[in-house]
């Protein structure tokens, strides 16, 4: 068997090792990508970049992602690289790109796949480990049937045929994160086959794919996760076996995607589907999901049925990385072919912000996994009843829910998708709670569609954008399973009700949101706080508005003359801009917290029509 440098093994085998300083993947080990990032700044030849200096040998303080990206951008600029516009990077004339994807997702289960040890996240290292997890001699795997529940749900969400009989196989390779020397997976007879998912324009597919495109799923298989390696200073690696044996599913697509954006949309949609059926622990960027992509190109006039030689890019850790890596690899392969060369079947890597993929190992370095049916494990037989029960209890799939949000709640496709995909589907539950509480204030049995749309648009805006302004990362909001966060949905609904009824200003509403976030509203009694702090909107009287208007209109005859020209029919359009200029002046002059821009505009317009223009006319006449 070929010998592979351990560093390379590390990079492609230690699935969740990529460092994600800043917003990505808190709490994961950060061994390989620090070196990888250092290396992408250099644009070295593939050979050099495949064998970087030992990453852990030069420990450096963590660099914030933002800074990394900035540095990379600067380096890119210095190298004379020009970024292509997103719109024109989906196709290369004369070439057809083909992409297949493999996604690994951690199943949401209480127990490991073959031992009763608990699954955990960030618990004390090596505290949930059974004898079999460590491959202690004489210990044996005991399949935990309840792991089938999320696995079958996921396969159903992917429209797969659930196989009545499936089996487990051993995949052999040596690595310290895998105590048995093999991983138990389903190679010969996976539990689910022949699925597909539909991607729509709203999912963010490439424009070239039109309104919708279907991606076939070849198979879905269950397998064991590996242990987690934690890089320490120097050459020390610590291994946490809590993760070893945690159940995963691997989703393998057919090579049916032809545009980078579509591939990224596919991964995003798979994540959304899995979280909506509660099959998966967390998303791509939290490390619960990993994507490998297979990329090949061929000339569009190639009449043969065969695809070009493909390469595999391992361990992509964000949707952007999926798209960027595919673009880079496609362009590299085309360049190789146009120069008369041949693409080598090999495994390549990608690091965040890079412009090219790098070679990890070639075909001659491929490991022969020597798949063998596990002789200790019997076949898994999945009964029709279980499938039926799970299909029934699965609830609405994301596409159905997005349609509901658009049609019944009147949201834009963008807001609907955003709500659905945030926080593993908890954000949209929160949204429903807010809307329910908000409608409760109106004490109406059947809410007219127009009013409901008004409520839900307001609620969606605040649930997405105003909430988003409070924190850097969404998980700081303290989401709970039942669709709540640190700001009780009832409190937000109360704030929005008062805002909608113009009892408070938008500025006050935002201030109250902050207070609620900081737990400064005792018992969540928003109204009491408004009372005690005197935050009620005490609007100026009509006269007071008029006085402010008069003040603002003073010495503005030139502006006002535009309104006269309109009235006289000399200009076609009402001078709305001029009106707003005057309103702005008014607002600045008056006490803002007691003014409503709408009222100010209404009063100003009235005064122009009734007072200022006639007065101008009389001036002109005299």
């Amino acid at each position: 068997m070929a010998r592979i440098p351990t560093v390379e093994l590390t990079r492609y085998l230690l699935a969740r090792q990529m460092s994600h300083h800043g917003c990505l993947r808190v709490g994961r080990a950060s061994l390989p990508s620090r070196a990888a990032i250092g290396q992408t700044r250099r644009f070295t030849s593939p050979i050099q970049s495949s064998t970087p200096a030992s990453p852990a040998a030069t420990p450096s303080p963590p660099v914030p992602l933002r800074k990394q990206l900035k540095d990379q951008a600067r380096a890119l600029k210095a190298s004379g690289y020009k970024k292509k516009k997103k719109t024109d990077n989906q196709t290369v004339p004369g070439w057809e790109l083909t992409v297949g994807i493999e996604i690994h997702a951690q199943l949401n289960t209480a127990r490991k796949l073959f031992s009763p040890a608990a699954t955990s996240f960030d618990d004390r290292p090596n505290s949930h480990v059974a004898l079999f997890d460590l491959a202690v001699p004489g210990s044996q795997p005991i399949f935990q049937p309840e792991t089938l529940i999320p696995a079958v749900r996921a396969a159903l969400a992917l429209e797969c045929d659930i196989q009545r009989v499936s089996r487990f196989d051993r995949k052999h390779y040596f690595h310290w994160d895998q105590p048995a020397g093999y991983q138990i997976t389903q190679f010969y007879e996976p539990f689910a086959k022949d699925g597909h998912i539909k991607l729509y324009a709203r999912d963010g597919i490439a424009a070239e794919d039109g309104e919708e495109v279907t991606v076939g799923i070849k198979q879905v298989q269950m397998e064991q996760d590996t242990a987690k390696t934690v890089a320490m200073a120097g050459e020390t690696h610590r291994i946490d076996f809590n993760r070893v044996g945690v159940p995963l599913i691997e989703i393998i697509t057919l090579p049916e995607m032809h545009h980078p954006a579509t591939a990224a949309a596919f991964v995003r949609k798979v994540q959304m589907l899995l979280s909506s059926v509660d099959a998966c622990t967390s998303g791509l960027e939290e490390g619960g999901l990993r994507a490998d992509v297979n990329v090949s190109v061929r000339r569009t006039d190639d009449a043969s049925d065969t695809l070009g030689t493909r390469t595999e890019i391992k361990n992509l850790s964000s949707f952007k990385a999926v798209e960027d890596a595919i673009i880079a690899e496609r362009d590299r392969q085309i360049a190789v072919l146009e120069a008369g060369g041949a693409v080598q079947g090999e495994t390549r890597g990608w690091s965040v912000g890079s412009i090219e993929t790098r070679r990890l190992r070639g075909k001659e370095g491929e490991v022969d996994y020597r798949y063998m049916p596990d002789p200790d494990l019997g076949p898994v037989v999945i009964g029709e009843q279980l499938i039926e029960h799970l299909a029934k209890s699965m609830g609405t799939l994301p596409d159905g829910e997005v349609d509901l949000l658009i049609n019944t709640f009147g949201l834009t496709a963008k807001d609907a998708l955003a709500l659905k995909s945030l926080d593993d589907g908890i954000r949209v539950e929160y949204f429903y709670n807010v809307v329910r509480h908000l409608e409760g204030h109106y004490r109406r049995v059947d809410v007219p569609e127009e009013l409901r749309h008004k409520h839900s648009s307001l609620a969606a805006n605040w649930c997405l954008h105003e909430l988003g302004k409070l924190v850097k990362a969404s998980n700081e909001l303290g989401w709970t399973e039942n669709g709540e966060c640190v700001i009780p949905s009832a409190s937000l609904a109360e704030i929005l009700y008062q805002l909608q009824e113009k009892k408070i200003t938008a500025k006050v509403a935002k201030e109250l949101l902050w207070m609620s976030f900081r737990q400064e509203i005792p018992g969540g009694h928003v109204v009491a706080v408004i009372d005690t702090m005197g935050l009620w909107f005490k609007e100026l009287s009509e006269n007071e508005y008029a006085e402010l208007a008069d003040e603002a209109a003073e010495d503005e005859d030139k502006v006002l003359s535009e309104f006269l020209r309109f009235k006289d029919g000399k200009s076609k359009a009402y001078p709305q801009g001029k009106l707003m200029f005057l309103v702005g002046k008014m607002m600045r002059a008056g006490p803002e917290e007691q003014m409503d821009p709408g009222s100010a505009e209404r009063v100003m317009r009235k005064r122009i029509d009734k007072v200022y223009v006639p007065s101008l006319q009389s001036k002109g006449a005299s």
Partner: protein
Amino acid sequence: MSTRSRLQGLCLRHVSSKRRHAATSHQQRRLLNQFISKAPLQDDTPDTQPPFPPFTLAVKDNIATQSLPTTCASSFLNAYHSPFEATIVTQLRSRGACLVGKTNLDEFGMGSHSTHSAFGAVSQTLPNEGGEEYSAGGSSGGSAVAVAAGEADVALGTDTGGSVRLPAAYTGVVGFKPSYGMLSRHGVVPYANSLDTVGLLARGVKEIRELVVGGGLWLEHDPRDPTSLSEAARARCASVRKGYAGVDGGKPEEVLRGLKFGIPLEYNVEELDPRIRDAWAAAAAALQKLGARIVPVSLPTTRHALSAYYIIAPAEASSNLAKYDGVRYGSRASDTDAGSSDAADGGVLYAASRGRSFGSEVQRRILLGAYTLSSEAMDNYFIKAQKIRRLVRRDFDRAFALANPLQGEPEPFDLSDLSEDILMENKLGPVGVDFLLCPTAPTLAPKLEDVVGAEGQSPVNAYVNDVFTVPASLAGLPAVSIPVRVAAEGGHKDVANTAGLQLIGQYWDDARLLAAAGAVMEVLGGSSR
């Protein structure tokens, strides 16, 4: 010497006077290296629960115990203490077993002479041959010698392709391999999981039968072993079997009368020692005389069984042994290993440790297995071997009168496939038999010097010793080897003049098989049943 007398003192109060005599008569033997570790005196007060009488137990050192190390006779595990005890050891201790020691074996159970051990070869000597050393058989050679020497009443072995039966035959004791899935493998360090079984050795059939049938071992499902038959499956299998009600049997004649013993024609190979062939024929004649029927049967796939075994078992072994890497088990070979930091030079972490710490036979089988599982060889070797395995089982199912409870309807077959020597019972085909009767091994115990070292047997020659034991392993069937006398050569009457006769039964017919084996042994002049 003092160790042994201390050891025997340990459980002497439990040992009947008859047995004590048997034990002391063997004390002239040299130290035969049959133990890797021995229990200290104060250890192991048996958790005796009446009605189980106490007995001494030796345990093959690839079965986990907590009081003594579990080395598998490998450098990788030479100081390994298991954090848990194998289910079978716990089960036997609760039935009166008093652990006397862990016995030597071929490393991880791979070998036919117990010579491939990190602790040196096991041997047996014949007092009246001037200390000449003979093979004890393998891989459970240490267990067999411990029983033969009277140091244990019962010994645990493991039988993957004959590793209990072959040493039993060479040392003149009884070796029993149960139906696959009957006795728990939890705590047995696996060699080839789909073939591995826990086997028992004793000087007579009776001790084994009293534990497996009388002691109810056959009934106990172990939830920690996924290949241990479920309680429902045990009940279903037993419902179509007889003999599980108890161990009270009649006289041998009564047990044997009317039983049909099949003589597999394909087992009469050229390499078979003529003395064994004669003993086999004499045994058949004796049984016939007592009212049993002797029926020639055909097991046509037998000639492929050995090849299939030596593909399947090494394949599983190469996988099972991947965990021994010199990091968690054994010691790192730091002299030649580049270590992880020199990854740029293509350095690897484990290869040197594995090359240094595994013995040559284990390395040979790992390489063989790695090859037959490789993507280009898989279809031509591993898959074909599995197909042969099915054919072997089908051969047995056709020969036996009882159906295999793990299979569906018996497959119809073409009578023209059968050998012309097979007699038809009626127009439907030949008569189905109760048991198969055949030799355990083609030769008597060879001299140790002929099987060790560079001038010793080639690996293939050693593998041929398993030719009669492997088919039952491939089919998961129960089989027992009992000692028979063969014509003495040069007038000696000793262990080298003892061969093994093997009885094979249909799946889960273990109770009847043991009853019949006891009767046959008594009839053929064995000491006990």
